[in-house]
């Protein structure tokens, strides 16, 4: 699929926007990278980070053979056949002794690395696993649970048409989340008819563009939103027509907001009451309002309450299912389960919002003598020993397991703790797909062809899962033969055979569907795109769930959509959504949104007597652990060389705090929390409020030095964070609100890290 002058289409894999890229190769180097003007969503846009992706492909030290752990903790190479056989044996043994539900599956893809993770489903079925988790379960599951109660699924803003755009704990200038974020933000900021509202304790780059920056005190977003809603209720700025026609239970909600003391709540959150009233009237008076909540609030106290209040803000003002407002949307596959009724974890009985084990609970589900504790962990393209709160405890938990298997491209901090490490091909060496598909109204999916051959010794994940499932001996031979035969006849015949097989033996056919598709349909796909086989099932899903949108995008059958996904390497518009599509997606009686969530209303009432203060004499500051910056990204860059500046990942403090602490720019400082301590160099940042310091995300990896040992690249944040400080509903950690002490380090040359 080489295009003009050798430019090949692919995508950025650093954040969920997955901007389309075109790349020119020199040998195995991504020598030149540009935004892809033919990509239907990003249209040539990228940020600076995408242009550094060669550091992902070639910067780190790759794994080139499966590894088995020795009794002394070191690892030795084994060949693939041995690794597959032994891993299957070990999984069988855990299943025999403790049941398949004792195997926890974690991860299954990064920001663009989801296609392989889709095949994990077959292995979960084959071993009888019942529990899964991934990074969403420390970020987004609270919001998903609130969404499940209200509109019934994920909602997005319509940023191109919104009259008022509200960002809560969200700085799209740096962290994107909105396609072509900087362009869209500037368009809103320049248009006198449109208004940008930012709720954030930090004067972010987005706040610089904002018409209204509600500069809350850290951790008081809930009071700010409750006050905004209280103004709307108390001044009767509600959209009564919408509430009458489209909702139920509004009478159960309004008294809780009518009771809010706006002046007192303004005092708690530190935003002038006059500004709160002005913004509340603005939101209520506008015809088209979209909002976006992100980690700034989701990693802070009261996150799930904030999520509820955010959604009430657009629901009580009628901003749903119309242009410029919030929408349900199509997707190729939903990221989480949007269920109100949720399962609980086996040991602690914690609620699994989104169907996922809350990340912060994982150590508690292992470090116990409870008979149903997890005994094994399967980790795919994830690094929980580094990325989950309180790393020390997470590592202790992993050490207590009978079996840890890691699939990754490099020897990550988690892989070092594994019994087996299975080396995967990189994201540019295999068929991959971008998968978030949350764009509105034109929703885009992109299948990415490999730019390079897999590094020798590595395998793409679909092949690893196929081999394991085969080794476990659970593949129904007759079904497989039938599907192979049908695949040779054609796609429609294959569809018929698969649906018939699923009708006859639903549990096994659906359970093993990913690897069944890979093994039977995969070999018939063009250009060796066998790993795209799972898209056949997803195309059927899109046709079933989003038929009208699919047809508006010009695809009349599931088969036609599948062909387009395979053929259009710059990305496919798979649905064109319309605001009216949102209503049929609402799963509640009469398509009405039930507004009352009793336990969150109780929590809302509790704000009146709750203290927003979590600092103490011992830890008088707050640390935002994980600030997104120009040169911070997820940890798939296993090198520090990609950063043009902020190489060490500076600790940023306000100038006043620096003065008080006796620090100047370039000094070393020690950050200490209840869980750990680390050193960083200091940078002054007048965007930060006094009392709040910030460290960037994506640092703290233990990178090989070339002489057999490793060196730590900046601060590993989760040495400092505390899994016990978490949201009572979702279990999400308070990473943006870590009580801390900051002290100058006398002299220099102190070893970084704890």
């Amino acid at each position, binding site marked *: 699929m080489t295009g003009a002058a050798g430019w090949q289409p692919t995508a950025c894999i650093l954040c969920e926007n997955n901007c389309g890229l075109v790349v020119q190769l020199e040998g195995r180097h991504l020598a030149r990278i540009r935004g892809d003007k033919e990509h239907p969503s990003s249209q040539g846009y990228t940020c600076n980070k995408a242009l550094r992706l060669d550091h992902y492909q070639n910067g780190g030290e790759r794994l080139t053979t499966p590894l088995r752990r020795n009794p002394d903790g070191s690892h030795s190479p084994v060949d693939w056949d041995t690794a597959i056989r032994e891993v299957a044996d070990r999984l069988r043994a855990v299943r025999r002794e403790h049941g398949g539900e004792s195997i926890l599956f974690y991860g299954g893809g990064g920001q663009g690395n989801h296609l392989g993770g889709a095949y994990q489903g077959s292995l979960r079925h084959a071993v009888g696993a019942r529990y899964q988790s991934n990074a969403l379960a420390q970020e987004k599951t609270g919001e998903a649970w609130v969404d499940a109660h209200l509109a019934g699924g994920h909602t997005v803003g319509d940023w191109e048409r919104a009259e008022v755009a509200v960002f809560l704990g969200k700085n799209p200038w740096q962290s994107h989340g909105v396609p072509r974020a900087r362009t869209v933000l500037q368009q809103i900021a320049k248009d006198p008819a449109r208004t940008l509202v930012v709720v954030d304790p930090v004067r972010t780059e987005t706040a610089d563009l904002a018409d209204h920056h509600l500069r809350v005190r850290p951790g008081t977003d809930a009071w700010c939103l409750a006050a905004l809603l209280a103004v709307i209720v108390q001044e009767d700025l509600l959209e009564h027509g919408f509430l009458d026609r489209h909702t139920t239970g509004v009478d159960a909600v309004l008294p809780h907001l009518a009771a809010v003391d706006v002046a007192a709540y303004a005092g708690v959150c530190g935003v002038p009451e006059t500004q709160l009233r002005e913004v509340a009237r603005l939101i209520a008076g506008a015809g088209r309002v979209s909002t976006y909540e992100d980690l700034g609030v989701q990693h802070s106290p009261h996150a799930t309450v904030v999520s509820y209040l955010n959604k009430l803000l657009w629901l009580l003002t009628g901003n749903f299912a119309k242009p410029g407002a919030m929408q349900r949307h199509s997707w190729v596959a939903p990221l989480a389960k949007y269920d109100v009724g949720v399962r609980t974890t086996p040991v602690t009985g914690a609620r699994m919002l989104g169907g996922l084990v809350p990340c912060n609970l994982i150590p508690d589900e292992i470090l116990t003598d409870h008979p149903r504790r997890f005994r094994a962990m399967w980790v795919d393209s994830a690094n929980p020993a580094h990325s989950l709160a309180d790393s020390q405890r997470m590592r202790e938990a992993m050490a207590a397991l009978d079996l840890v298997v890691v699939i990754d491209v490099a020897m990550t901090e988690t892989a070092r703790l594994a019994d087996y490490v299975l080396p995967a091909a990189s994201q540019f060496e295999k068929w991959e797909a971008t998968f978030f598909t949350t764009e509105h109204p034109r929703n885009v999916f992109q299948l990415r062809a490999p730019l390079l051959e897999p590094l020798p010794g590595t395998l793409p994940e679909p092949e690893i899962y196929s081999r394991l499932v085969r080794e476990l001996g659970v593949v129904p031979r*007759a079904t497989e033969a*039938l599907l192979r035969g*049908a695949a040779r*006849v*054609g*796609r*429609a*015949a*294959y*569809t*018929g*055979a698969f*649906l*018939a*097989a699923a*009708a*006859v033996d639903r549990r096994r056919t659906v359970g093993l569907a990913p690897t069944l598709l890979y093994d039977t349909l995969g070999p018939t796909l063009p250009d060796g795109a066998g790993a795209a086989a799972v898209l056949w099932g997803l195309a*059927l899903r899109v*046709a*079933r769930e989003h*038929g009208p949108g699919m*047809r508006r995008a*010009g*695809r*009349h*059958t*599931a*088969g*036609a959509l*599948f*062909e*387009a996904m395979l053929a259009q390497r710059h990305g496919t518009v798979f649905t064109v959504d319309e605001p009216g599509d949102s209503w049929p997606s609402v799963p509640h009686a009469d398509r009405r949104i039930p507004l009352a969530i009793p336990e969150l209303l109780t929590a809302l009432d509790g704000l009146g007597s709750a203290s927003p203060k979590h600092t103490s004499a011992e830890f008088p500051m707050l640390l935002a652990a994980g600030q997104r910056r120009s040169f911070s990204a997820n940890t798939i860059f296993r090198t520090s060389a990609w950063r043009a500046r902020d190489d060490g990942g500076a600790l940023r403090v306000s100038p006043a705090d620096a003065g008080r602490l006796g620090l100047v720019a370039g000094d070393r400082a020690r950050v200490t929390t209840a869980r750990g301590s680390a050193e960083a160099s200091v940078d002054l940042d007048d965007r930060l409020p006094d009392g709040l310091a910030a460290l960037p995300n994506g640092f703290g990896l233990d990178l090989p030095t070339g002489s057999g040992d490793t060196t730590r690249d900046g601060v590993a944040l989760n040495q400092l964070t505390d899994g016990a400080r978490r949201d009572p509903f979702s279990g999400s950690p308070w990473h943006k609100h870590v009580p801390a002490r900051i002290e100058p380090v006398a002299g220099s040359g102190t070893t970084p890290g704890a």
Partner: protein
Amino acid sequence: MVASAATLIRRHGASGTSIDRVLALSGAPRGSVYHHFPGGRSQLVEEAVRYAGGYVADLIDQAATTGDPVAVVETFLALWREQLVASDYRAGCPVVAVAIESHDDAPQLARATREVFARWQGQLAAVLTGRGLSATRAHQLATFALAAVEGALVLSRAEHGTHPLDDVGTELRGVLRAALPAGPEEAR
């Protein structure tokens, strides 16, 4: 009991499906038959026909969500092919088995088979009209497809092989594709 009756009808026809055989296959106690089926054997047969009809209709509904009439016919074909092979060519379509026998004493059986066939035809016709065919043409093609598949099923059973189903599948694909408005995006 109803599922067991449907299985027996597929193998032995309606007249060969006795209460004794149903009890033997399902393991249900004899008293339960007249409790659940006061109409006796003919009621059991009727419910078996409607049960099988609903099972296949659910599957057709799933296939219909693809929007592709060929996929619907392929699903229908594949179901019978799978059942035929799994039963070593001993089990056919229970609705056909009941329809080809005369039921002078039980007119409700003829009515049940007629309604099941009409439902399947209607489902396929709806997908065809969804792709732009006239109601008349869609109905004719749906009749043609249903007759061809059910006929092929009888031939395959007689022949103890899937060739009739495969041949009919090939021809039906061609006929349906030719009848549909040209779509450049369609594959095979």
